[in-house]
């Protein structure tokens, strides 16, 4: 179980066509994911994280307003190019996804057990009864107490945390190689958040799946990630293993993000009020010239940062960064 990455995303771009013109939601994004690895994709809202995950699942609206280019090789097969029926078989099978909103992501008129069983039955050759058995096992696995009794409950009977466990059970039903978790804990309160993260870690250890964990919460990242991909304005701006990134961010944006997080989870110390990054996420229709982060960057040099667009360059064998001044700043 080593060697080639399980997922290899190359030059992924997503554009939306709107009244106001073309919107590049994701630009030229490339990353890899090794088996069993957890990659955290971090960024503020609007940075393109969720669009990336939906693009990989091919769940973006299938109309002419959306243009997706690039490659996403899942064990060598390009998710963006295979025919839809094949893709459908992969979805929920080899690659599955957990969404942000547990309150609305379950079908309100179908008992939860049936929803899990449906996923099981779709991808595995089981009859109804066996699928139901399997669903019960999965619900139990994700830590739903008295799982068998809750099979016939409707989603509205369950709490948010429980619903998210159901979602996870559904996602895991076919031992996926890759699980994309799109802010799975954001909508939950803190104690539940921790439980769900624990659960995910535990399940990952058991099944050896790779996880793409999308979040804006660096606290969560610290807890779960092996590697971190920081996105800003639809681009990857920094990519590094967890520890080096946290201890020595190269991109000023990453540094800003880290400063804006209560650091107790990270180092147990806390110093004064949290300095948020000034300014707002750029309007994707009017990206600033040069480095897209320069209007908010404390280190930006007029005439340089707003003139040439930086490229993503390798900082060392494990790290990449997109900044014109990273060497100066690191020094």
């Amino acid at each position, binding site marked *: 179980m080593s060697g080639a990455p399980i997922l290899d995303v190359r030059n992924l771009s997503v554009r939306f*066509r*709107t009244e106001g013109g073309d919107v590049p939601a994701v630009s030229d994004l490339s990353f890899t994911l090794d088996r069993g690895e957890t990659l955290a994709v971090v960024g503020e809202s609007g940075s393109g994280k969720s669009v990336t995950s939906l693009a990989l699942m091919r769940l973006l609206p299938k109309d*002419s*307003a959306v243009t997706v*280019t690039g490659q996403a090789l899942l064990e060598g097969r390009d998710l963006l190019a295979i025919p839809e029926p094949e893709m459908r078989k992969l979805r929920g099978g080899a690659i599955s996804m957990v969404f942000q909103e547990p309150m609305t992501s379950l079908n309100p008129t179908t008992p939860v057990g049936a929803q899990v069983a449906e996923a099981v039955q779709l991808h595995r050759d089981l009859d109804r009864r066996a699928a139901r058995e399997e669903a019960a096992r999965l619900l139990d696995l994700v830590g739903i107490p008295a799982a068998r009794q809750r099979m016939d409950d409707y989603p509205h009977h369950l709490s948010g945390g429980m619903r998210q466990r159901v979602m996870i059970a559904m996602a895991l039903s076919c031992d996926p190689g890759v699980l994309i978790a799109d802010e799975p804990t954001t909508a939950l309160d803190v104690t539940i958040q921790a439980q769900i993260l624990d659960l995910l870690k535990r399940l990952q250890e058991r099944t050896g799946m790779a996880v793409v964990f999308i979040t804006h919460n660096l606290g969560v990242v610290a807890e779960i990630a092996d590697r971190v991909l920081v996105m800003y304005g639809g681009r990857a701006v920094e990519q590094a293993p967890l520890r080096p990134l946290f201890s020595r961010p190269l991109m000023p944006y990453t540094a800003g993000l880290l400063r804006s997080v209560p650091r107790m989870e990270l180092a147990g110390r806390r110093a004064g009020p949290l300095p948020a990054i000034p300014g707002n996420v750029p309007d994707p229709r009017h990206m600033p010239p040069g480095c897209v982060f320069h209007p908010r960057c404390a280190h930006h040099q007029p005439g340089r940062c707003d003139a040439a667009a930086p490229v993503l360059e390798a900082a060392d064998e494990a790290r990449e960064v997109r900044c014109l001044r990273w060497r100066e700043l690191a020094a």
Partner: protein
Amino acid sequence: MSLALSAPAFRRFRRHRLAAFGAATIVLLTLGCFLGPFLLPFDDTTIDVMNRFAPPLSGAHVLGTDELGRDMLARLMMGGRVSLIVGFTAMAIGMALGILVGAVAGFHGGWLGAALMRFVDAVLCFPTIFLLLALAALVSPGLLSIIILIAATSWMDVARIVEGQVKSLRERDFAVAAQVLGASDARIIVHELVPNAVAPIVVAATLNVARAILLESYVSFLGYGIQPPVPSWGNMLNNAQIYLTSAPWLAILPGLAITLAVTSFNFLGDGLRDALDPRMRAR
């Protein structure tokens, strides 16, 4: 996987194209009905018994003549005036009544509000046409009475909308804050509530014009409508019924006019709803 071609742009264009079509048609109809008769060599009430039932495009009368030899185009225009006047004034009165009742009920709440809203509920229990006919028995037919009749059957929805808005806004912080700061009720209504309620009201108003024009034709069809010799699209249609086989254009033309006008208002209302109601915008 690469998809091309515009969609949202086209989609919005299409959307607005229908609304624009509606608006343009309404403007044209209104202009035509109010200015057109001045340009025509014929009067809408001049009878010419020697020249009855002239088919369209057969002579001096572009759209032919009716059962009394009157010019159809002139009558359609004058009828359009009446129908549009009925549509707009009935809508305006209905709106005013609805807003008044809704605002009072929503603002004061309590037993008065409850009583008003129960009354609204009771009136809504009557199927519109039943209520309309029952009310029609009360008054002698005529332009004013038909306007009042239609207004009397189309204020309840607005009352409900306004009452709901007012009530929900009243409970919101800013209205409470404004009240604490000593703003008068009227000021609160004008500055805080009206802007919030205006979108659904505008939509309802547009759709109610369409409804009023349609109801006028129903009432006239059932014999309780505008009196001769004043034409309205409804009574023209009613009178044309017996000539359906011999002079079908007498029935077809006003029917088309009604359909066109009502469709236009409905398109416009639909477009306005899309534009004004953010919840509906996704459609």
